[in-house]
């Protein structure tokens, strides 16, 4: 009935009275002329969001566009702008170093990442982030130390402190991996690799601190801090390998046996290399001290009868004492080097017998020897650094104008510096031609 009624109503439409075509045409022309008079010529149309909503309302109901699409688009734009500005700031800050204005943004981004990982319960992700950030702190420290910023020691010290915190967090995470049943050895492997890299970066930092002559104030404290964190990184790496072994023995196959063995072998070799480096450093320092000692003794001899006699004598005594210290250090480091080498060899034998647990114990033993050796090296280098500038000052006196101690270096390694001191001094003393034009100062130049 309704349908029929509607059909009948619609048929009434055909009875519409239509306007005359003539009137329609005339009225159209009239309307056009009237509205044309009201049109103001416009300048270039500016972009207007209202046009966008109207264009959308061609396909969607206007009320829907106004009440739903528009708020949604606005919210998306706000979120989009927020995210993009954050991404821009975060990416721009990713290369920033401590002390720079974008650095807090970098740290804030890191903190957000860790918080998000913790909130969503991504333990592996959180651990990976802490390891990554620890590595960043180490690299930042290296970059700061190589700069010429007067506050670099202070900034680097803070960064090292942050690195220490990160390393401790990583250590805690390792503990959790060790106790957690479902935790895989892959994360331990990742931590091991990164801890090794951190250790290597910190080694560079120490070399930088030694070679940069302009960083004497507070440099030794920083160096001690770096050593501490470096040992922490070393311990973390060992702990990670230990966990890899444990997990492997528990039947975890996520890391292959060969990889575990490789990790142990790398650590053993690393310990031997570190011990050897220490020994070499001390040996070279000892050589330099030997040459310097001879030079200073000659200075003292030449100074007899002048007003500089007492100061050169005092210097000579100091050099003698330091020289003795370096000689002792040479024998100690030699001993530790032998121990580390022997332990590493034993470890490798155990490794070949698939005795992984004991091989890890050998890493610990070798590392203990290496750490002691490095401690002695650090102390020796510090002692030598304390006396070498004195040599430079004494050499500036008029009496010793004929003596040249010219130090140069062509590499960034402290070892090379010491080595070059030794060779250059030898050249300077054995070739008199150089004496004529050389200045009488002890300088260390880093290229």
């Amino acid at each position, binding site marked *: *009935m*309704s349908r029929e*009624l*509607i059909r*009948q*109503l*619609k*048929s*009434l*439409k*055909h*009875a*519409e*009275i*239509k*306007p005359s075509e003539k*009137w*329609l045409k005339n*009225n*159209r022309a*009239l*309307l*056009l002329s*009237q*509205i*044309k008079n*009201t*049109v103001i010529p*416009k300048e270039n*149309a500016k972009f207007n969001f*209202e*046009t966008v909503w*109207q*264009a959308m*309302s*061609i*396909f969607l*109901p*206007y*009320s829907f566009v106004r009440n739903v699409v528009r708020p949604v688009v606005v919210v998306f734009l706000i979120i989009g702008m927020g995210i993009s500005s954050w991404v821009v700031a975060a990416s721009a800050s990713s290369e920033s170093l401590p002390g720079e204005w974008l650095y807090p943004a970098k740290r804030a981004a890191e903190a957000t990442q860790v918080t998000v990982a913790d909130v969503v319960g991504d333990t592996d992700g959180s651990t990976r982030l802490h390891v990554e950030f620890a590595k960043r702190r180490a690299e930042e420290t290296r970059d700061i130390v190589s700069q010429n910023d007067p506050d670099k020691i202070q900034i680097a010290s803070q960064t090292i402190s942050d690195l220490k915190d990160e390393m401790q967090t990583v250590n805690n995470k390792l503990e959790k991996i060790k106790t957690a049943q479902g935790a895989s050895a892959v994360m331990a492997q990742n931590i091991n690799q990164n801890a090794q890299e951190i250790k290597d970066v910190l080694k560079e930092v120490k070399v930088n601190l030694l070679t940069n002559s302009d960083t004497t104030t507070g440099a030794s404290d920083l160096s001690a801090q770096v050593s501490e964190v470096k040992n922490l990184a070393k311990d973390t790496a060992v702990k990670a390998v230990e966990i890899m072994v444990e997990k492997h023995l528990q039947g975890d196959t996520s890391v292959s046996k060969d990889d575990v063995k490789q990790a142990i072998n790398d650590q053993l070799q690393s310990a031997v290399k570190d011990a050897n480096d220490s020994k070499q450093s001390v040996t070279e320092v000892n050589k330099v001290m030997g040459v310097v000692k001879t030079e200073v003794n000659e200075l003292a001899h030449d100074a007899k009868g002048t007003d500089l006699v007492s100061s050169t004598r005092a210097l000579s005594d100091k050099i003698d004492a330091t020289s003795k210290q370096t000689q002792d250090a040479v024998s100690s480091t030699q001993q530790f080097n032998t121990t580390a080498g022997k332990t590493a060899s034993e470890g490798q034998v155990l490794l070949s017998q698939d005795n992984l647990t004991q091989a890890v114990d050998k890493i610990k033993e070798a590392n203990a020897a290496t750490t002691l050796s490095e401690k002695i090296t650090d102390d020796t280098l510090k002692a030598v650094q304390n006396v070498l500038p004195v040599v430079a000052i004494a050499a500036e006196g008029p009496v010793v104008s004929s003596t040249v101690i010219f130090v140069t270096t062509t590499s960034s390694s402290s070892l090379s510096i010491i080595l070059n001191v030794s060779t250059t001094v030898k050249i300077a003393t054995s070739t008199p031609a150089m004496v004529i034009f050389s200045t009488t100062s002890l300088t260390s130049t880093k290229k």
Partner: protein
Amino acid sequence: MSRNTIAEKLLLLKLRTTEDPEAFTKLYDIYAKRIYSFVFFKVSNREEAEDITSEVFLKAWRYINEKKKIESFSGLLYRLARNCVIDLYRSRASHKEAFSIDAGIGIGIEIGDAGKWKENLGEELVNKLEMQKIVQALQKMKQEYREVVTLRYVDELEVSEIAEITGKGHIAIRVTLHRGLKKLKEILAQQ
């Protein structure tokens, strides 16, 4: 898509963004006849219908120029036409020209179809009995029902457009339509 085809909406968008008079005259071509007949049914006078139709399009142009919101162009035209018709009735009432006011309503303004259906339907339609019956039934209905029913089924406007024209909500229009059709059926049954 409803009667508001994409082409019409594009024209309206062009009109709003560029204020192009040509776009407006194209819209005039589409709607002029419809508005004319809508007005004519209410005023029953050719000259007045023509005047109101012209006025409606001029007002619509001003409305667009003032950047006022337009949900539907046809809705706007019908609303303007309805208001113009009301204005005309008011002026007639003030001149005591009561010929266009339904005596039964009594409150003054009637915007119905002025009882001119029969005359305007043309010879062939008048001959059709059922059409006559419908027209008579419509005439007997309350103005409120008649307006909504004719706008929906004779002018074939969408509910949203009728809501815009009458200033009522969608639900109110649907309810009125439902009741109007029911009432129309009752009247037809009585006949």
